């Protein structure tokens, strides 16, 4: 029916959002910019988490490993005197190789065991970064060359976030994406119908690790100091998972809406209810889990709207070709 609007609307929407975000620094203060920067970081993490966690159905609780690894590798390379571009590439490359290596043992596990295995990965990285003092500065953390990069890192983070969403959109409409959905539904049958599941699962993890490590590098460049708990801690590990689930896993708009609503809610609660913000936050999570188990994008109010714009959970693989 409206296949035309399906193919035209998403690019227009992306361009509009990108345009607004690029013009924003002229009109708003640094407080809002920092908030959007953090939002972009979380959004990138949530959207890249969703490739493995949502599309492929493997709950990867250790997704922030790549964030931390990218951050540390970028910081160390920056300290060695290399320019930012090189440092970011180093961070992404190291983390992608790491993702490829760990995917072999980790993807022998399924379901809760996979989630636990990946969760263990964060602790491993935290212990390593605490103890490899010569390289990481140990528990004292690591500082990068100082300087005010807030505007540049704002642009970099926003571009990374948008690029991650675009990648996620294209992935869902590709043959590779179709295979990931099939693996989520029934891995054994997907394999019986010719999908090289082991290869594709590794590939999905490597692809998901790239935006996460890139945003890690941008993050450390901006804040100029990280410590093991800051990048391998629980908050950064669980936030993307919670955001993706809140918005709706396995959908393009899920992590987007989840990240925006969660960071906004946190911000509002933090300023309006200083003593009760964590309680209120917890109550909200429970309520959403009870009444919208599929996430916000599958709720009665949002679903028709999102489907109409052509960003719903259907892959529309056939319509694209």
């Amino acid at each position, binding site marked *: 029916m409206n296949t035309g609007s399906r193919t035209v609307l998403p690019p227009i929407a992306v361009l509009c959002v990108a345009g607004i975000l690029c013009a924003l620094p002229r009109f708003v203060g640094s407080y809002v910019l920092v908030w959007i920067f953090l939002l972009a970081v979380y959004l990138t993490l949530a959207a890249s988490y969703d490739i493995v966690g949502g599309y492929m159905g493997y709950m990867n609780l250790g997704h922030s490993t790549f964030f931390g690894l990218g951050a540390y590798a970028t910081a160390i390379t920056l300290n060695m005197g290399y320019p930012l571009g090189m440092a970011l590439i180093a961070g992404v490359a190291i983390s992608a190789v790491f993702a490829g290596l760990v995917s072999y043992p980790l993807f022998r596990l399924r379901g809760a065991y996979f989630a636990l295995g990946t969760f263990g990965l964060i602790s491993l990285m935290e212990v390593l970064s605490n103890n490899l003092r010569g390289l990481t500065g140990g528990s004292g953390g690591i500082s990068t060359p100082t300087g005010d990069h807030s505007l540049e890192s704002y642009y970099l983070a926003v571009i990374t976030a948008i690029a991650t969403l675009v990648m996620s959109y294209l992935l869902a409409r590709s043959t590779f994406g179709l*295979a990931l959905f099939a693996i989520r539904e029934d891995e054994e049958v997907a*394999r019986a*119908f*010719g999908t090289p599941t082991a290869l594709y699962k590794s590939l999905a993890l490597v692809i998901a690790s790239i935006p996460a490590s890139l945003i890690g590098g941008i993050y450390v460049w901006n804040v100029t100091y990280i410590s093991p708990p800051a990048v391998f801690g629980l908050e950064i590990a669980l936030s993307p998972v919670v955001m993706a689930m809140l918005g709706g896993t396995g959908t393009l708009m899920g992590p987007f809406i989840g990240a925006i609503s969660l960071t906004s809610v946190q911000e509002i609660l933090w300023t309006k209810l200083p003593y009760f913000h964590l309680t209120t936050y917890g109550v909200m999570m429970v309520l959403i889990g009870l009444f919208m188990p599929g996430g916000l994008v599958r709720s009665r109010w949002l679903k028709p709207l999102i489907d109409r714009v052509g960003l719903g959970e259907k892959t529309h693989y056939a319509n694209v070709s």
Partner: protein
Amino acid sequence: MSTVLECQGIYRFFGGLQALQAIDFSVEQGDIVGVIGPNGAGKTTLFNVISGAIRPSSGRVIFQGRRISGYGPHRICTWGIARTYQLVRPFASLTALENVLMGVCFGRSRHPPRKERAHLAMAELEFVGLGDKAHEPAEDLTLVQKKSLEIARAMATEPKILLLDEVVSGLTPTETATLIDKIREIQARGITVIMIEHVLKVVMELCKSVMVLHYGLKIAEGSPSEVVHDPEVIKAYLGDRQGSEENSA
């Protein structure tokens, strides 16, 4: 007529359980072959061995003169053996068309160009009569539609051999009749069909030869009418007549 599939001395153990013992049989190109036997006889295990889902403990599966046992199921599928499942297993949240696309995109020996894929998948859906359900999620289909979808997905891989695991069980007589016609059409497309079936009427009507399994052993083989009169087979299904013999003695 040439032999397309050959099983040589297949054994499969699950711990101490002998699921398959010394299974030898061969299938001619273009035939419809039935595999029957009581529950737990090892029929589905045999299919799992042929399709590569599990490896035989010993023995070999030869497909078109080439050993396939020991290779993964994704390889065997692209070489030309496709299957359906006894308890239907479509990709639940994907649409019917996407289910069949999985077969088109990954199950063939040569990947068709992207532009043709949807068209090829649609043709298989229409073949099984699901053309109008193409954009519905597989989980919303009825049982007979899901079974048809599984056949379409298997046919989309351009198989040389189609393994059908109890496709007509649980269907009404009308649905069964439609499906029998479909299987004949599949045979007419030059595809060899091996079917596990409990509904003997279907076996009698379709199969050229039948193999009977019982506790993992092949106890009979031959044309359907020979097999159903075989005393061993009757014994396997109904038990022996010890009770009545004692009465008459």
